[in-house]
């Protein structure tokens, strides 16, 4: 029974963190076929911005966090204008931008390594040391904060996409770019906005991640791969599916970690996704075909 509870507690936390970054990644792909390999670096960047504003600039945490998110949004906008903006009309956009963002990502991560050194930092924005017990399983308040934040943000993104005019334009662009333009949507603005939004979500996810473990320049690599795994499972571009798939992956990883051993969690989900890709390339909930180009 305790095993079960442990899996649920830890799986939901992982799922909450993955969902934020995966939803952003999926939105960006869905809107303009950009597989953003720098997503993980932005995750890390967001987490470091908290340190920068808090430690170096002496802000209170309640100010540092929103400032970090604003910086992440700006990073997303800059990313758009240095990469996608120039490449949108050229051939092989989807593969070229993937390589370009691999380059940007490594440059950014090594830049962080250079600036902050390889030693881990403790994320100041954390309540990890305070916890309560449920059936002898300790649950830290930090987990509650993560669940609540993820829930609020996901509901917020959902409302934005389904109820607001600009959110509808984002969905319309993802479903048919030409038609959206015919409706008067300035699609490039949509791209910038989506990348900024995705970067904010990534930053929140990065802050959460670092609050549960620690802050390191290269910490974005694994969560990026996990976010990719999630959106592949959901079917590329399926935003709602990404949410469910994130929770599924979180629970699966937690189950393997608790039942088999901590080091097998990641290989297990990698094998799972490879099998899914071979068996159902359009994803678990995929309706669309893989041949999108």
């Amino acid at each position, binding site marked *: 029974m305790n095993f079960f509870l442990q899996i649920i507690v830890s799986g939901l936390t992982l799922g909450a963190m993955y969902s934020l970054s995966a939803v952003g990644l999926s939105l960006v792909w869905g809107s303009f076929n950009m597989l953003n390999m720098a997503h993980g670096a932005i995750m890390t960047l967001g987490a470091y911005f908290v340190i920068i504003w808090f430690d170096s600039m002496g802000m209170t945490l309640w100010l540092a966090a929103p400032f970090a998110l604003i910086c992440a949004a700006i990073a997303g906008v800059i990313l758009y204008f240095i990469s996608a903006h120039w490449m949108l009309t050229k051939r092989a956009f989807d593969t070229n931008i993937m390589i370009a963002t691999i380059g940007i990502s490594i440059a950014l991560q090594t830049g962080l390594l250079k600036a902050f050194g390889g030693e881990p930092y403790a994320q100041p924005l954390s309540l990890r040391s305070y916890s309560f017990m449920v059936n002898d399983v300790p649950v830290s308040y930090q987990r509650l904060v993560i669940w609540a934040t993820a829930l609020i943000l996901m509901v917020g993104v959902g409302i934005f996409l389904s109820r607001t*005019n600009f959110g*509808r*334009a984002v*969905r*319309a662009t993802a*479903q*048919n770019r*030409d*038609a*959206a*333009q*015919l*409706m*008067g*949507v*300035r*699609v490039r603005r949509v791209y910038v906005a989506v990348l900024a939004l995705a970067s904010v979500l990534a930053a929140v996810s990065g802050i959460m991640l670092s609050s549960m473990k620690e802050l390191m320049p290269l910490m974005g690599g694994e969560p990026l791969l996990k976010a990719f795994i999630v959106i592949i499972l959901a079917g590329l571009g399926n935003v709602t599916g990404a949410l469910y798939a994130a929770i599924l992956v979180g629970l699966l990883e937690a189950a393997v970690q608790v039942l088999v051993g901590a080091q097998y969690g990641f290989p297990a989900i990698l094998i799972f996704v490879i099998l899914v890709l071979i068996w159902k390339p359009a994803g678990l909930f995929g309706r669309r075909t893989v041949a999108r180009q």
Partner: protein
Amino acid sequence: MAENLLTVEGLFAGYDGQPVLRDLTFDVPKGALIALIGPNGHGKTTLMRCIAGLLKPTTGKVEFSGKKVTGLPAEEMVSRGVVLIPQGDMLFPDMSVVDNLRMGAFLPAARAKFSENVEEIYGMLPRLKERSSQMARTLSGGERRMLAIGRGLLSGGEILLLDEPSLGLAPIVIDQIYEIIENLRKQGRTILLVEESPNRIIDLADHIHLLDTGSIVWDGTGQELQAQPQILETYLGG
């Protein structure tokens, strides 16, 4: 005749350096229904995409309301009042019918009047009201076409470009669609329409142009076309 709302002059366009439209010139007067007829692959859709701003012409001029609009992007064209109801409808498949209609009224001017205009559309196309919360992808072919037309009308443009409104529909549904087009014409809308066959529009259009390999080879009224069956024979194979 009334003043020209749309003027196309010496238009060339194509893909990858291969010309599809060659030296196209015609006018659309205000309040008129002008039709272009031509076989598949002779540039009808290319022309529509060019005027609507989805494709940049190689050379030539497009004027709308007396202003040069050549090569402006689609989102700019729609804000000036050129509305394309594209071939194949190009709906937003994973959005509900009403959300598709809302997208039609995306621009601020149209959005302000959305709630009253949508009632008008529902009055004209009652099927859309019944299906309003359904996803667009679940609609039948005829309903999709109606949604595409309704969505286009909500943009509140001054000219409607209709790209093969009868394409792929059953004859009885085509009747319904053309009834709608006739009503729009009676309301005084300016319409530019392309079709593969002249059957439905020969009595409806004010002026008909025949398109062959990207150029206009004949133009006149429907009556004139009926009087010269050899023309249809030559260009459209009867």
